């Protein structure tokens, strides 16, 4: 099964809780500002992601999703 880890950068408030709890240290806070004026989290090392969803669990803003349907997300990203 193939999974996708997506951070909706405009939903993200850059609180960094996901960065703190990621067991693989995949995430970091970006230097680029989002439309709301926050510096969002991003996957600095996506290859290390094990899709454990710990970051999703901790995110207060439901900004992170994990999908197994690649096509759905391709559409959403447009």
């Amino acid at each position: 099964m193939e999974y996708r880890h997506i951070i909706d950068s405009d939903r993200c408030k850059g609180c960094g809780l996901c960065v703190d709890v990621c067991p693989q240290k995949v995430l970091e806070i970006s230097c680029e500002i989002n439309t709301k004026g926050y510096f969002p989290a991003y996957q600095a090392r996506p290859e290390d992601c094990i899709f454990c969803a710990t970051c999703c669990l901790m995110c207060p803003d439901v900004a992170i999703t994990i999908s197994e349907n690649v096509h759905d997300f391709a559409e959403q990203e447009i």
Partner: protein
Amino acid sequence: MSKTFKKPECLSDLHTHYCPGCTHGIIHRLVAEVIDELGIKGRTVGIAPVGCAVLAYNYFTFDFQEAAHGRAPAMATGIKRVRPDLIVFTYQGDGDLASIGMGEIIHAANRGEKFTTIFVNNAVYGMTGGQMAPTTMPDQRTTTSPFGRNVKEVGMPIKIAELLSALETPGYITRQSVVKPKYIVRAKKAIKKAFQYQIEGRCFSLVEVVSTCPTNWGLTPVQAIKWAEETMLPYYKLGEFKVPE
């Protein structure tokens, strides 16, 4: 187990007004997930408090009422007494529930009203700007306890879960937290259990959730979850305090 993760249906698309790292968002999501999973969206009525979660009604996609400060348990009582078929929950903070609404919550719990209360304890008044709450920790600085909570003058923080579990009326009373992923998993289970007790018409249920307020605590979100863990959790012990027989 599926590894996918997405926003629950009961949560609206709106971005919340909460500060970065505020754990209200996590608790909202858990409640929404539970209502999704139980399939009760069409008969659920939520009650928003006065406090930071005053706009909670914007973030859910089912019927909602907005209460005055502390009065949510009375409104929930009103609904459940005239429409016992509805699933009703109040979402209240520590100023709302443990201070101005103490009378309402104790009597609702003692009557065994069959609704669910999600009680968010972050040891401070959020909405009004960081004043001392009944649950503020000893020596914790707030805008109305600038030298730290002086327990000799204002007493010790109130432990709501313990207080309510002292009532003889059967109920489900538990304290959970969302400051660590493993706590979040447990908190969701507790919230689900609380709603299930309600659906079965068994008892009043309350889930106290130890959470954070980085902005008013003057900490970063990550420092805040650590402060909650180190300072609050030893005092506010997690666990089930009362389970109906």
